[in-house]
């Protein structure tokens, strides 16, 4: 049997639906006339399993799994990693430092741009937006330990 894209996708949804039901453990289901907090999740999770199974059954219509195009995977992975780093630093280092560093990192590490130009671009972007948020609209943005 050749593995189709929808075999994988459908199976994932079946597993997800089952996981939801497993996680629902002690939520009271109640009854039709007075549904409890586990009632609708149970119904929707069951539907997810049913539709996931339907996808698997009709998977012949989809392309082969091995033909799914992953050429953008490296780009996606690197952007994701840099974004994770930026998010985890965001509330500690504050808006200005984190965002400048993130823009520089994206431009230098992924796009191989000149670090100086990247730094100039990053700093300009961040300062302009900072001015809009903080000075014009007086909205607090996360501050660094150096209180700006």
């Amino acid at each position, binding site marked *: 049997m050749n593995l189709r894209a929808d075999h994988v996708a459908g199976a994932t949804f079946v597993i997800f639906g089952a996981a939801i039901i497993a996680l629902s453990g002690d939520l009271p289901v109640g009854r039709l006339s007075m549904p*409890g907090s586990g009632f609708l999740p149970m119904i929707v999770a069951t539907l997810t399993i049913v539709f996931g199974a339907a996808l698997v059954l009709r998977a012949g219509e989809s392309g082969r799994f091995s033909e799914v195009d992953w050429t953008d995977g490296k780009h996606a992975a690197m952007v994701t990693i840099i974004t994770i780093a930026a998010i985890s630093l965001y509330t500690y280092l504050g808006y200005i430092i984190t965002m*400048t560093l993130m823009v520089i990192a994206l431009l230098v590490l992924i796009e191989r741009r000149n670090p100086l130009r990247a730094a100039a671009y990053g700093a300009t972007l961040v300062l302009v937006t900072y001015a809009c948020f903080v000075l014009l609209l007086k909205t607090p943005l996360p501050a660094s330990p150096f209180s700006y």
Partner: protein
Amino acid sequence: MDRRTFVIGTTATATAFAAGPAFAQDAFPSRAVTIICAFPPGGANDIVTRPIAAALEPILKQPVVVETKAGAGGQVGAQVAASAKPDGYTLLSHNNGISGYAEVDKLFGRQPKTTRADFIPLARLIADPVLLVVNDQQPYKTLKDFIDDAKKRPEAIVYSSGGLYGATHLPVAIFEKATGIPKLRHLPTNGGGPAITALLGNNAQMSTQTVSATLQHIKAGKLRALASFGGARSKVLPDVPTLKELGYDAEYYLWVGIFAPKGTPASALATLSAALDKAAASDVFKNVVSGLGQEFAYLNAKDFEAFWTADAKRSDEAVQLIGKQG
């Protein structure tokens, strides 16, 4: 402002700024104070916290920033404040909700995220007595009519609240116990506004809501107040009897208070509490309170602590009375 511009200009070399925290040695407060508001705009917290912050600025001579951290009935804000560095630069604006979480968590067998011991009360900004109101399609003219009917038809009268175990749900439990009526049927909604809308649209027949939220509807004849949970009659509604005068032991207010996280140094607490007393006496703040149709009910740190202890006891009891639902 000069320092800020300077600092911004040197962002690129920001890593060299190890000397930053040295400013902290200055007299309190040497930088902006943040008040975490645990409820979103549109509620009583937001509307009184912003003016008090504005009034605090000239007194503390530092910016006072209100930061909304809403969610989970105020638990998100409480948790953020409890885990903030207790240096006096982070305060919390919260309401009745802060009393009851631990009790509700106990009910569900959850580990409480914050307890009352995590916070030091600084000031009570407002306290708005709760009214028992019915809509104009109900026959009840007095509280006695209501109680008699509630006894005759158990679980038939529907009341709306702004949320389970919330400040408009607990008073009903207190009322049920004080009058000995069988349980009423509860229609939870997601906020004070929706609860009043449900009452006006006759999707619920009764609700316990504050004076300022219902006054206009009472004046327009759309709602009728049968009793007040206040300690004394409200000046704007002098005809509405209190439950106490009717012989029922029930008292409940929707209040908003300012708290500091546990461990805040005493000197900072003293400065803040004095500044809050002064800010509350300002015209800006007094105008806001009277604009909301409320009586001035500010309490300083000491009085608020005593009030909070008594109020929290009422709230814990009410949570236990309601018990676990569903």
